[in-house]
């Protein structure tokens, strides 16, 4: 009689644990949220890769064009000035912080997705099976195969619910906190890579092409006269070099404009997926898929409860 009472209190505790786990399971990430995280991870990778490549290319093109420009007019570049040296306004430290931020953005999307999709249920299940296999050998426990199976199912269910709840709690804490940074980086990248927005990498290259070379350097060459420190051969060579430089400018300008076809959709996709993720993570709306998922969880827990009652 005493033993019976003790066993009942044990399994009542187990049942209470299952009931307590119900809200924990309901707090796990939904299929819709996992989908939003997956899309966000893809968008961060696209934006990071495309933007990092374009920013690096812009600085490289700036250095190339300004080196050619300096060969024609050494005074057109000031190697002692941060703004007017060979890389113009596109300085290495400015590029470096941008590449680091984009790389961190890519890691953020990837880590978020990994957290949401990491599956340790196989490890937990294997451990539970081992534990029960050993407990069954302890004859004093009088653990039958049926009872062991019920306990194993309960351990698995509770462990996985706890893990999924922890994942969701982490995501719901970090995503809203980082949302302003996501909006900021989308604006920063868009402005940096738009030649029409003053104060970005693209506008720096655009200025070198259209103002420093196509306007000012052309005027410089027009001013050259034989006998004022330059021979006719020098002037002829500089005019030829200017033609080559102008051809390079036209090619780089075309590449800069074509890059927009890749960059703009990547920025739009990133902003859209970031916004969807934020809405999905903070929304209290429940979809029919979510209800189905909850129903499966509840059904499983009820099944465990019934098995516990039936077994003991």
């Amino acid at each position, binding site marked *: 009689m005493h033993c019976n009472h003790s066993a009942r209190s044990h399994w009542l505790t187990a049942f209470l644990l299952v009931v307590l786990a119900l809200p924990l399971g309901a707090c796990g990430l939904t299929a819709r949220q996992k989908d939003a995280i997956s899309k966000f991870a893809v968008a961060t990778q696209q934006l990071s890769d495309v933007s990092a490549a374009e920013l690096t290319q812009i600085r490289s093109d700036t250095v190339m064009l300004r080196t050619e420009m300096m060969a024609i007019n050494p005074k057109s570049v000031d190697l002692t000035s941060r703004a007017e040296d060979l890389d113009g306004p596109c300085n290495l430290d*400015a590029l470096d912080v941008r590449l680091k931020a984009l790389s961190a953005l890519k890691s*953020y999307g990837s880590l978020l997705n990994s957290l949401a999709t990491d599956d340790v249920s196989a490890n937990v299940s294997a451990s539970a099976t081992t534990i029960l296999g050993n407990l069954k050998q302890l004859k004093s426990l009088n653990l039958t195969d049926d009872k062991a199976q019920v306990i194993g199912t309960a351990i698995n269910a509770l462990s996985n619910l706890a893990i999924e709840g922890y994942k969701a709690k982490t995501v719901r804490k970090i995503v809203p906190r*980082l949302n302003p940074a996501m909006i900021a980086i989308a604006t920063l990248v868009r402005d940096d890579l738009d030649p029409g927005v003053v104060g970005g990498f693209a506008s720096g290259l655009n200025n070198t092409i259209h103002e420093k070379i196509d306007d000012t350097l052309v005027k410089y060459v027009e001013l050259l006269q034989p006998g004022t420190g330059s021979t006719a051969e020098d002037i002829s060579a500089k005019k030829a070099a200017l033609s080559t430089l102008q051809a390079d400018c036209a090619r780089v300008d075309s590449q800069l404009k074509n890059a927009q076809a890749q960059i703009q959709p990547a920025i739009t996709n990133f902003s859209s997926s970031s916004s969807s993720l934020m809405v999905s993570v903070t929304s209290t709306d429940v979809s029919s898929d979510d209800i189905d998922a909850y129903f499966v969880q509840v059904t499983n827990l009820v099944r465990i409860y019934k098995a516990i009652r039936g077994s003991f």
Partner: protein
Amino acid sequence: MPGQTVSEIASQLTTAKRRLDDLWDAYPDQRNEIYDKIVRIDSEIETLISNTIDEKSKAYQAVLSQLETANQELDAARTNIRNFANAMSLIAKVADTISSIVTKA
């Protein structure tokens, strides 16, 4: 030019340069002086762009810091989950040892 946006300042400098372009065509005998003024405006524009890029670098740095913190938290969360699974595995090993001892006894 306090209170003006970068775009407004850049627009004024570019307008001034276009006026000098007009003077370049209108007064061929004064091109050396006009050229010097054009070079000075170019310098102003490049400094403006460079300063703005540097300002934006600070904004990138702020975003970078937030992302690095978040990435550390996400990494730690993944480690915690793996540790949980490892702890289960450890319990299994302990149960195995206890079972062996009890069985032998």
